[in-house]
């Protein structure tokens, strides 16, 4: 029913933890297009996690307005509806799993919403299948790997059939295999089910996979664009305490050394293609 509405809209949002303190988020305006995969990138303490919590009414803005599928998070009676539409996965995999069996944890949100039992079974099976955890349905969560736990948490959100999936540094505590695994799962959900994704992270490799990157610094948005647009500004990204893809950095150094490389290089493939064009075969 809300398909024609924007999944998320922030209008000049500010938030302070205490009345006199400096705002953790200050004057952020942001519109997320339906079906997009947007990364919010920033170092620790830049306000990105606070921003996430404003997006499903865990925090309410001190100033401005947050709209989830057109609903204002400040409207108290809509809060459960907002949280159903904007599902959130948190950083620590252990601290968001409630039940002792995987399928019962996936059921938790549905139980809270009062979904009838027969309907629940269907939604749980679908959610577990979507994150490829069907075989683990009857396992105890504490025996799973970090990446698997996060996929269970995603299934728990997915079962509530949200429009928007907010990943609040959900890979920060995982090993590289777990990170890749969770990212791939979410990208697939975005591609195949059209779920809008907001991917909050400090890993540039992950942000580079998004359609759009919003870089946060000191509570405000300091850059906004496609991965190529953002990472071509190597010096600026680095000055914000972030990494750039190694190939983007090398491309900049090679340009400074006189090679005519474009601004679009993000990975080894890009680099190889351009180098082959500009290093003459005579130098072989």
């Amino acid at each position: 029913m809300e398909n024609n509405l924007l999944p998320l809209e922030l209008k000049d949002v500010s938030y302070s933890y205490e009345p006199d303190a400096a705002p953790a988020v200050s004057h952020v305006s942001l519109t997320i297009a339906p079906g997009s995969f947007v990364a919010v990138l920033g170092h620790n303490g830049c306000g990105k996690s606070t921003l996430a919590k404003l997006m499903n009414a865990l925090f309410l803005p001190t100033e401005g307005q947050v709209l989830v599928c057109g609903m204002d998070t400040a409207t108290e009676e809509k809060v459960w509806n907002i949280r159903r539409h904007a599902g959130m996965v948190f950083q620590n995999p252990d601290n968001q799993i409630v039940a002792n069996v995987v399928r019962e944890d996936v059921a938790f949100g549905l139980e809270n919403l009062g979904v009838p039992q027969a309907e629940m079974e269907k939604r749980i099976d679908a959610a577990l299948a979507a994150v490829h955890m069907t075989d683990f349905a009857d396992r105890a969560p504490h025996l799973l790997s970090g990446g698997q736990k996060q996929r269970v948490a995603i299934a728990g959100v997915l079962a509530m059939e949200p429009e928007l999936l907010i990943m609040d540094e959900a890979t920060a505590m995982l090993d590289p295999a777990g990170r890749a695994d969770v990212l791939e799962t979410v990208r697939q959900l975005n591609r195949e089910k059209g779920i809008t994704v907001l991917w909050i992270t400090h890993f540039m490799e992950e942000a580079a996979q998004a359609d759009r990157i919003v870089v946060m610094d000191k509570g405000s948005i300091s850059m906004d664009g496609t991965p190529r647009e953002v990472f071509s500004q190597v010096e600026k990204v680095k000055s914000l305490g972030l990494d750039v893809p190694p190939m983007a950095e090398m491309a900049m150094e090679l340009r400074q050394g006189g090679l005519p490389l474009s601004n679009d290089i993000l990975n080894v493939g890009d680099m190889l293609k351009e180098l082959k064009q500009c290093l003459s075969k005579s130098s072989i």
Partner: protein
Amino acid sequence: MLRDITLGQYMPGNSLIHRLDPRTKILLTVLYIVMVFCVSSPVWYVIPLAYILLCAKLSGLRVRQLLSSVKPLRFLLILTFALNLFFSSGETTLIQWGFFRISKEGLMTAVHFSMRLIFLVTGTAVLTLTTSPIALCDGIESLLKPLSKIGFPSHELAMMMTIALRFIPTLTEEADKIQKAQMARGADFESGNLIKRAKAMIPLLVPLFVSAFRRAGELAMAMESRCYHGGEGRTRLRVLKFQKIDLWAALVSVAALFLTILCGKWIKL
């Protein structure tokens, strides 16, 4: 080390007893306790004995498993036996040895009370061996539900139990890790007297509590974001249902209880 602590003693299975509704099992355990207390003379323990053996047979548990549940209580058992043996008054003296005197009545009481303890423990072990902690939680919640009308927090209690069960393995693992980290800094958890050892626990307990509080805060936020707002209007994935076998189990148990009471009353030995 700490990792070796297992939770409860549940033996997974799919026997008739395993499949009983947890509420049936809890109520029947209460009934069984009444039955054991109704036994008037040691001879009539034959009825609960038959009952337990039947349970063991139907649940696929070995008698040895049931008896091993008595092991932690062996000192209490010996004490019960000894106190009743030496300090019961009775007329027929069996052995007189200085101050100590053992009477026939004393011996009977000692046997009686010890048997009672053994039967109580093995019987409740049938419950905990065949019912998962989660099912127990559900059963208790459901049985306590009528009390929520008078303000008893039955849902909250059950949620607390579920979360406790969920986090015991996580915190155990964490305790193990912290202990190792402190040992790497030369901490000694194993030697010294009681006070010294208690003091040595501080570097383990403080981080563990700090972490438990942090986890609690994060969990609360995660639960809220998944629309948790108390027990009101909540549906459940697992719905408890009484079935025919529950009825049969109840009938058999009630019959056994009556038999115990009647035997004690009418047949004097």
